[in-house]
């Protein structure tokens, strides 16, 4: 038992360090940093390259990677991105950090190579020394983690509570503008906080690599697990985050001791513990306080008065652009052949899934991070109904979508009182829970081959399926455009901006949000079914929440409120990697993912996405070239005077 507790302490300590880094940046910058895990991976990969590949000694390698490179990443991210996000909408904040989370591992793969690393050394010297504590073996790697968490707690507490710097950081929470008026540069304080946070991320990366493995997904999952401690801390209490993080690690380890090790139940339950903890604390917070509000770390009235409100320029493209785009894309499947038609088919299927984001985030303003899960429900449901139960394919797709829609409605109802950041976390948690508890069932995995889904006779070829998919996309896009232009569109616009004002004019926020959630889950499930048709089988691993984050990054880079953007994003997601695979050297492979991440980062500056930005600029140039025509300016951010 003691052995399990000591092992659990290691994971608990890692959760605690990660949770501390996340809470500090949220408190000081108002940003929940989804790229924390990616930063940890990048620094750990750099350390590996210095120490293992280039044979650098441990101490200089640690100084270069954790001591210099990690804070430098924080500084660069602050200067290039985070300092522009303080007063951005929660959607933009989340999506921009998701973009960094997508781009950083791709950058690491581009610089250091993509070969998988099976054994990564930590900062403890090799051969690894093993000590015995109460007859339990404890490795030097584990002891390093304990030392790190104790040091972090001691230094963090002293700095935040008893130093001038700590006072300035705490002042930033309320109002950077007021901090500025008192003679402190909020920009410098924020830069220091980001450097400290990425230092912590780097430290976690290096000390945990031998324990969790040097793989970007492992680090992202570690970060997401730490979110549970962040939620328990209500996004603000550092001591609670640390205690819950440590407790969670120990609980997981002790459960491993109690439960039968070879049972599939154990294998499903253990990874789900952080997500169960998230759910419990969210429910506890909502029950105790009536709602799960995000911290109002967006500055005070003065901050808003003196800042540009760039996100207000966000607006959907006119429907007129859809026709030429569809006319151009339509013949693609005719012109292309073989491999490329397959990519178009998959891209169109993905575009249908993307429409669910357009509806949910673009129109409803609800930051859900589990649309990939609903796509998975659609794919697995349709495959089960058609293959195992013999339903006709259209009915199977409809049936699966009708299974997903109530799930979306129930999740919408349960999360209706949550703030945007809480909502993002709870939906991500829901997705990961579904992955661990439902998608891993043998009924769906079928020893790794997934559930087969045969194409119908009328859409047997890739080309025919591409056109059926495109027709489905157009119908669903028309429904979304219709919603946007109707009274419901006005209602969603109202709820998106100010739920209180909408309520006090007679709008039922609950009804509008819940119905939007249900409709979006339906659309995602239909898209998921088409993805399964395109692949010939529903593979649960293709619908992971982490893949969903990359999907979101691609879509927001193109335009989260544009149905045309959804189509282009779907095709971009499949055709660009296809192009790289066929025409460029293999080391280019991470470039598309890097570009997708950068696209999401650009949303910080252009919230309407690159497509709308390009089209508006093209319009502006055309207007300038036209003699005596009124010049249409690209929308400029306007000063809001309050």
């Amino acid at each position, binding site marked *: 038992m003691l052995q399990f507790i000591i092992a659990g302490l290691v994971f608990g300590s890692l959760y605690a360090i990660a949770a501390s880094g996340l809470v500090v940046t949220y408190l000081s910058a108002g940003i929940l940093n989804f790229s924390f895990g990616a930063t940890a991976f990048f620094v750990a990969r750099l350390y590996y390259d210095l120490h293992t590949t280039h044979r650098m000694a441990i101490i200089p390698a640690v100084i270069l990677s954790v001591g210099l490179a990690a804070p430098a990443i924080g500084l660069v991210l602050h200067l290039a991105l985070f300092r522009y996000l303080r007063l951005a909408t929660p959607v933009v904040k989340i999506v921009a950090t998701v973009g960094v989370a997508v781009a950083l591992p791709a950058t690491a793969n581009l610089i250091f190579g993509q070969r998988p690393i099976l054994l990564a050394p930590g900062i403890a010297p090799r051969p690894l020394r093993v000590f015995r504590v109460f007859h339990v073996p404890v490795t030097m790697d584990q002891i390093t983690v304990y030392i790190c968490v104790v040091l972090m707690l001691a230094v963090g507490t002293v700095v935040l509570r008893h130093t001038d710097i700590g006072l300035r950081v705490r002042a930033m929470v309320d109002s950077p503008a007021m901090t500025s008026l008192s003679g402190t540069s909020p920009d410098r304080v924020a830069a220091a906080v980001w450097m400290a946070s990425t230092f912590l991320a780097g430290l976690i990366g290096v000390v945990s690599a031998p324990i969790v493995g040097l793989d970007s997904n492992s680090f992202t999952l570690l970060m997401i697990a730490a979110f549970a401690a962040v939620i328990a801390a209500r996004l603000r209490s550092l001591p609670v985050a640390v205690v819950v993080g440590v407790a969670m690690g120990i609980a997981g380890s002790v459960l491993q001791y109690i439960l039968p090790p070879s049972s599939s139940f154990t294998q499903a339950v253990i990874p789900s513990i952080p997500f169960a903890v998230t759910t419990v604390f969210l429910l506890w917070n909502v029950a105790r306080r009536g709602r799960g509000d995000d911290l109002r770390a967006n500055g005070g009235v003065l901050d808003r008065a003196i800042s540009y409100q760039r996100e207000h320029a966000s607006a959907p493209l006119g429907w007129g652009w859809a026709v030429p785009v569809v006319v151009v894309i339509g013949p693609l499947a005719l012109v292309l052949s073989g491999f490329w038609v397959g990519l178009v088919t998959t891209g169109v299927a993905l575009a249908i899934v993307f429409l669910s984001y357009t509806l949910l985030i673009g129109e409803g303003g609800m930051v859900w991070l589990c649309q990939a899960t609903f796509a998975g429900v659609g794919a697995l449901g349709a495959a089960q109904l058609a293959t195992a139960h013999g339903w006709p394919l259209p009915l199977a797709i409809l049936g699966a979508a009708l299974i997903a829609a109530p799930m979306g409605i129930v999740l919408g109802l349960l999360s209706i009182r949550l703030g945007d950041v809480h909502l993002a976390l709870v939906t991500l948690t829901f997705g990961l829970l579904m992955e661990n508890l439902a998608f891993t069932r043998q009924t769906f995995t079928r020893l790794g081959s997934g559930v087969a889904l045969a194409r119908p006779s009328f859409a047997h070829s890739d080309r025919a399926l591409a056109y059926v998919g495109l027709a489905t996309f157009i119908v669903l896009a028309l429904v979304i455009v219709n919603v946007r232009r109707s009274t419901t569109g006005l209602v969603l616009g109202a709820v998106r901006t100010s739920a209180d004002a909408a309520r006090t004019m*007679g709008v039922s926020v609950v009804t509008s949000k819940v119905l939007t959630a249900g409709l979006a889950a339906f659309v995602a499930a239909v898209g998921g079914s088409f993805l399964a048709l395109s692949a010939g089988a529903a593979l649960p691993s293709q619908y992971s929440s982490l893949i969903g984050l990359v999907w979101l990054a691609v879509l927001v880079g193109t335009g989260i409120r544009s149905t045309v953007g959804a189509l282009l994003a779907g095709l971009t997601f499949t055709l660009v990697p296809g192009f790289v695979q066929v025409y460029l050297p293999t080391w280019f492979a991470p470039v598309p993912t890097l570009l997708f991440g950068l696209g999401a980062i650009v949303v910080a500056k252009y919230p309407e996405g690159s497509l709308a930005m390009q089209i508006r600029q093209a319009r502006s140039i055309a207007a300038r070239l036209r003699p005596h025509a009124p010049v249409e300016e690209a929308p400029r951010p306007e000063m809001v005077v309050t």
Partner: protein
Amino acid sequence: MTVAVSPSRAGAALEVIGLSVAFGGVVALADVSLSVAPASITGLVGPNGAGKTTAFGVISGLVHPDAGRVVLDGVDVTGAPAHMRARRGLGRTFQHPQVFSGLSVRDHVILGDRVRHHRARMWSDAFLAGGLRRQPADERERVDDLLGLLGISELASRPVDGLPLGTSRLVEIARALATAPSVLLLDEPFSGLSGAETDAVVSALRRAVGERGVALLLVEHDVPTVLALSSTVHVLDFGRLIASGTPAEIRDDARVRAAYLGDALV
């Protein structure tokens, strides 16, 4: 939702009975009772932190009271959510105007009108060409009338993003009036307005009271304006109602002078 017909003060459009609210240990409202007669303007004044905005929050359903009741047109709506109170005829504006980003000035008024006259149904809007339907002539007429009344017709097609504070306030008032309320709560409606804009708002409000019988409850720091407009004035101080009466009675009240007015208005 629980609504019940309540024995309230005869004919009151809005009645608040024994409202108490505390945030942690801070008492925001303590046993506050007041009423608003139909087709009248009632003022609610008090120094900063007196509890005026909290009172609006409780009346409109955004803040839950620890004790007390809210009665709207004789119906107890204490347990009703904010949107159900609004559908029963309770409108409000906010101290910091809450306009909807991305919507035009005209959209705001249309939305207010449709919430009252044509409730949105997502399924019919999505699947039955809701977005292609032409705007009914009577709706267009009502919307144009309100935009004209508040002097913002020329801004009708402009997105509200970046509008000056005063104009945002006019948009918010137009939107609230579009919902055809029987009781309208106005939180500092003249703050940030120019003289001409204030005149337009006063004219619109008087017309709403005179022609539509709307009862207005007005929170405003511009005390002379409140005293000039209102038939009844209530005064809050540290969460307690310290005086109620006609403007003349309020001017002469010693407690009000001591707590709020000072000697300037005497």
